[in-house]
């Protein structure tokens, strides 16, 4: 199987989706002639032309709003927002139209579309370029939110998102874009939105994360198993909304202990929601408080200190050890 980076895998998903269905079009800033600032849409203009690979003016709200219009008209737009920090510019069109047009029109129209956008820290970027605010979208009725963690699931999830009849916010962990390669088969793969992936089975404690945080988590897991002899179960959430509560609850029912890791701010973040659900459905099995290792409730710091802000393997190991020690 060809080895691909996440960027290449995403490009493959777009290319094959566009080849398979001529309603699929991509749009965004600098995505056509420039192939996107991260080159995810590279080569698509040449193949599919400017009516399907659309460079837009610099206006995120207009991009999302017009994409919803195109979806109402029957097309299937895959929008790129250059950095997830700029989805703020489009908050109203996302919340008021994209997430609502199906319900408002009583099912007559639908926004079968995807917002692709790189999120998260770790690439030495300037202010507003490292945000992880997936919780905003998780809190917004009418959306789906997914976050891949590697090339192969990125490709499959993007295919699933494009095929989904409802609007999907697709956060791309930009720190992973070119961090490693994986086998990605030529033939189209897809996966079910709403299903988590048990990356490693274990009995002692459940580690839950997603996106770029899977890397420090897996690194920590290795040390935990090898050095600290903690048999961790590791879950890659993949779908933030809907969330695979069942898999999480089953795991914690088994392990009784849990640590959740994400980059985004803590208050009302994804970890809070997972804890609430575990509290509701695995209460009697919990041996220790669920720990959350998250971004702090501050603005993402400038890049000279970002590595300290981001959850790292040490902190995760520390949290697991504390949780294991709890009686």
């Amino acid at each position, binding site marked *: 199987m060809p080895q691909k980076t996440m960027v290449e895998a995403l490009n493959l998903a777009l290319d094959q989706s566009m080849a398979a269905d001529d309603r699929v*079009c991509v749009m965004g800033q600098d995505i056509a002639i420039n192939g996107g600032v991260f080159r995810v849409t590279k080569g698509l203009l040449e193949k599919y032309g400017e*009516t*399907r690979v659309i460079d*837009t*003016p610099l*206006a995120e*709200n*207009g991009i*999302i*709003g*017009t*994409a*919803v*219009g*195109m*979806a*109402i*008209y*029957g*097309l299937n737009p895959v929008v790129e927002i250059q950095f997830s920090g700029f989805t703020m510019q489009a908050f*109203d*069109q996302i919340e*008021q*139209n994209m997430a609502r*047009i*199906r*319900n*408002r*029109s*009583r*099912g*007559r*129209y*639908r926004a079968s579309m995807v917002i692709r956008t790189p999120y998260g820290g770790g690439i030495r970027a300037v202010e507003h370029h490292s945000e992880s605010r997936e919780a905003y979208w998780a809190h917004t*009725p*009418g959306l*789906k939110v997914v976050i891949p963690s590697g090339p192969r699931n990125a490709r499959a999830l993007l295919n699933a998102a494009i095929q989904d*009849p*409802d609007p999907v916010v697709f956060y791309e962990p930009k720190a992973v874009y070119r961090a490693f390669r994986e086998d990605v088969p030529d033939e189209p793969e897809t996966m079910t939105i*709403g299903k988590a992936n048990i990356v490693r089975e274990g009995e002692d404690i459940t580690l839950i994360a997603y996106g770029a945080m899977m890397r420090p988590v897996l690194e920590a897991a290795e040390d935990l198993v090898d050095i600290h002899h903690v048999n961790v179960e590791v879950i890659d959430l993949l779908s933030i909304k*809907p*969330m695979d*509560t*069942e898999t999480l609850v089953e795991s914690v029912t088994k392990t009784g202990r849990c640590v959740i890791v994400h980059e985004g701010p803590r208050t009302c973040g994804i970890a809070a929601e997972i804890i609430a659900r575990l509290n509701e459905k695995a209460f009697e099995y919990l041996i220790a408080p669920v720990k959350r290792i998250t971004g702090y409730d501050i603005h993402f710091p400038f890049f000279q200190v970002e590595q300290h802000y981001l959850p790292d393997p040490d902190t995760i190991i520390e949290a697991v050890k504390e949780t294991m020690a709890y009686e």
Partner: protein
Amino acid sequence: MSSKTIETSATPPPVATNTPDAPIVETLSSKSSCDTPMTEKLIDLGEIQDISILNEDGEVNAALDPNLPKVELLKIHRAMVLTRKLDRRMLNMQRQGEMGTFAPGLGQEATQIGQIYPLQKNDWFSPSYRSFGAQLWRGWPIDQLLLLWDGFFEGFAPPEGVNDLPFSIVVGSHVPLATGIAMGMRNRNDESFVLVNFGDGAFSQGIIAESMNFAVVYKSPIVFVVENNGYAISTKSECQAGIAELARRGPGFGIPSVRVDGNDILAMIVASQRAADHARSGKGPFLIEAVTYRMSLHTTADDPKVYRNDDEVEAWEAKCPIARFETYLKKKNLLDDAAIERIESECEQEVLDAREVFRKKAIAKPREVFDYMYENLPPELQEQQADYFAKLDRKGVE
């Protein structure tokens, strides 16, 4: 407010604190429009038209009269009367507690019917909330509009075969959707066009600027109608913008624009048809400013006495779009008082009949609230739905 000449200061500029020897910047008065560099050229911004055909007394400028066939004229007249009857009835129902808060369109009947007139079935319409006149024309059943304003969500379902969006409650938010539909048409070589309307207040929303820009950049077939009815709730349109004629904004985005007497149905139709032709022929977007007046309340929750004088309202009564049109039709011998009376009572009856239908349909369906969230309800929402149904069961609600 003038966009015409550059103001130059007659006195030397103040001394900049960081430039001890203050420069004297000369006042430049020479204006040459030659094309070489090292000059002050003038860029001509052009002109826009301001169209009026039928005056307040129902007199027509024959040279501009579109001379519509009789059957068309009568159809248009009836639509305006029906719009007004529905409007008054809804207000009445609201005052009786049989209707939620709603936004009357009194006085804007010509603006409504005129703008919608050129649309064909395949064209699309993205209306603001004060557009039931146009919605009726497009085929929305009266009972459904009543349901909507009375808080039944099903009122928003576009009727089969009608390419309309449910109207927008968030001002301006529906405009990019219209532009997007037009972009889709353009990309698919669809020869239809999209009509979108919004108010003088909405025009301040940045999303409308963005939508206009997208439309012109992609040369998409869309007609923007700004219904300048003088007010956004209590805010006069003079306080809303720095331009007296809102149509000026169109050329600033590269969009051909006209200003129209929005109480003049003939002018509205001429302008709208022209705009529709423009859009359909691949020339891109067009903007119409329809100058009209909100005769009634902003919504039934509003008290205009706080912010405007009766005098002002009375002055506009003389400009009534229906009365003016009726004078014209009478002069053409297409109508007489008896016919008007008959049409009015037919329209009244149509509204009353629809009210009966509405009353029959006005049954809340609380169990539907999860139904249109997603094509397939995810498990976590199924769970919430089950909770919710259990709650309804406990309360004994169907």
